[in-house]
């Protein structure tokens, strides 16, 4: 793992060494989800530019109370850019941005009503990736019933929820989407129970955006020989025959780009960067072709183009979804 810049002084004459650090949420850096993805982006950055140019590091949070002190720790180490991974860090980052106006921050998955000048928010069109997986589900369901399992409802999960619903309906107006929230991101057994129930009620494909709860849902798919859709990362490896696709959130790409802009000097603080399909910020998993028929993938590709061109607008929440249905 990375070493922080105690060598700073030695290098005083050479070019500037950029220091970029991230603070994970309580999932930890190897969560097989967005923390890991963000870290992958930073590692890629360091690989590309070399240690002489950029030093990256992470701090893991064990509980919510760790966010603020962890951000502080990075501030103390003169980090040039501090990335808070996940909406849970929103308050900690805002707080720090206010206190250290000379420092730059970034926040993944959340923005502010009044965006501070030194915070860049990286948002993702999760609704779009969910929509695309919804298209696949709509086309591939044999029972005309597909399920969605959410973790704890909120803005981010809403995007998955309504994007997915819209996708299913677009691809297959006869299909029905069953939505159930686990009210947990951690209880894998609960995810499995809900998925079992959904399977029993005739849902043959389930998309879950629910952290470890989703792991349970994928487990159920394996056991019941049903199909599942992963989230955030390509989760096919969890059940190669059952996870037909995943709603990808390419945080690594976004973080890499952000890092590049800092080093290249093109960085501008206070921005709201929405990582779109166009920017390869979101998408479907590359392993999709293993389990999804080529014609369906072709169809999805076509629809994706329409999204990029603005012909299709994907809803982000209940309100937009209802408007769309009208």
């Amino acid at each position, binding site marked *: *793992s*990375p*070493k*922080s810049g105690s060598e700073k002084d030695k290098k005083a004459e050479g070019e500037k060494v950029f220091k970029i650090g991230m603070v994970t949420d*309580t999932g930890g850096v190897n969560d097989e989800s967005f923390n890991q993805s963000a870290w992958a982006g930073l590692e890629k950055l360091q690989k590309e530019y070399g240690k002489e140019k950029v030093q990256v*590091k*992470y*701090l*893991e*949070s*064990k*509980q*919510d*109370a*760790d966010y*603020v*002190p*962890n*951000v*502080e*720790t990075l*501030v*103390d*180490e003169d980090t040039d850019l501090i990335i808070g991974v996940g*909406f*849970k860090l*929103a*308050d900690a980052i805002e*707080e*720090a941005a*206010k*206190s*250290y106006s000379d420092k730059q921050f970034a926040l993944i998955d959340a923005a502010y009503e009044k965006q501070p000048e030194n915070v860049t928010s990286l948002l993702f069109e999760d609704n779009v990736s969910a929509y695309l997986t919804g298209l696949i589900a709509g086309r591939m369901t044999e029972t005309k019933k597909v399920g969605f399992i959410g*973790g*704890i*409802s*909120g*803005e981010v999960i809403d995007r998955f929820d309504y994007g997915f619903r819209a996708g299913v309906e677009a691809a297959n107006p006869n299909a029905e989407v069953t939505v159930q929230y686990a*009210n*947990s*991101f*951690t209880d894998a057994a609960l995810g499995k129970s809900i998925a079992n129930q959904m399977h029993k009620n005739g849902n043959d494909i389930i998309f879950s955006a629910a*952290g470890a709860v989703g792991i349970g849902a994928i487990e159920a798919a394996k056991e019941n020989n049903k199909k599942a859709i992963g989230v955030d990362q390509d989760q096919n490896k969890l059940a190669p025959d059952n996870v037909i696709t995943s709603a990808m959130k390419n945080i690594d790409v976004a973080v890499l780009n952000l890092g590049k802009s800092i080093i290249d000097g093109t960085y501008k603080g206070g921005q709201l960067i929405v990582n779109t399909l166009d920017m390869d910020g979101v998408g479907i998993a590359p392993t999709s072709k293993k389990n999804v028929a080529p014609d369906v993938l072709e169809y999805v590709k076509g629809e994706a183009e329409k999204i990029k061109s603005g012909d299709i607008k994907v809803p982000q929440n209940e309100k937009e979804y209802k408007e769309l249905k009208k």
Partner: protein
Amino acid sequence: MSSNTKKKKMSLADNAVLFSLISIILGLIVGAIALLLAGEDPIVAYSAMLEGVFGKPKFIAWTIIRSTPLILTGLSIAFAFKTGLFNIGAEGQFIIGALVATIVGAGVQLPAIIHIPFTLLVAGFAGGLWGGFAGWLKSKFGINEVIATIMLNWIAFYLSNFMIKSTWLARPNSEASVSIHDSASIGIDWLTGLVGPATKVNWGIIISIILVLIIAFILFKTTLGFELRGVGYNKFGAEYGGINVSSSILKSMAIAGLLAGIAGAIQVMGVSGNVTILAAQEGYGFDGIAVALIANSNPIGVIFSGLLFGAFKYGGTKMQAVGAPSEVINIVIGSIVYFIALSSVLRMMYVKFRDKKNKGGNV
């Protein structure tokens, strides 16, 4: 004679502290072994932690901030232990205290001089109700407080999430609730300016120490404490002495709940300013058990064990900076508690041995 007993007490107390220190050192050694197994240099890792705790005034401030709720949940549990009860429910009482502090802190407008004590009181009262409910279940139905409080922890957890999400506390597009008004904040602004802008320096530690002293006073200097301890040691004897056992159990749990509730309130009023939807229990209550045990359930000792625990929690994250897995901190803390368990026995044996020797010498 009286000076003699005093001397004896002094050296005894010294021993308690000595044995605790030995436990801490042994715990650190176990951690060091784990680090060596992981291929890390323990000296480097521990220096990073020490530096992370003491390196700057700001770090010390953070250590204290992290310790404050642990001191109070530890106090809650230590108090319950002293009165013969096992309050596993500090976790839930903490949640309730934090929730209610947010409701009162955000829901009413008052001048700070009233708003702060009012918020603390109401939150403490709510925590007290939550703890007292378990006490009531025990005294009325004989339900073991361990089960009741475990269940109440989860009920509090979901109740809090419900309130944050489904009531006026909800903040649109956020996991966090609305924030309390500044008038309910116990931050120390001038000190924040000194140690660093984002450091949440607050009056919590002072409030905690005052509460520790009050609890110590109640336990050992008042009739209430006499009753509660009496019931804790021997409820039949207490009943014989005319003490109302049921109401004592209820009072104990309520006071324990109050303390944990205030811990939650201080966290909101001094640090977070709001409550967030929880995905998992945060562990303030469970860590509080360890804090109470390291202090041998002595209220004053809780201050030190709370600070120690906070230092490990805060300093531990700094070990990541040198690449050491911060999980080692849990191993260190666990080992310390384990050695404390052993050492209180060693201490007792030592004291017994010495007393016997003294006795023999006098004859």
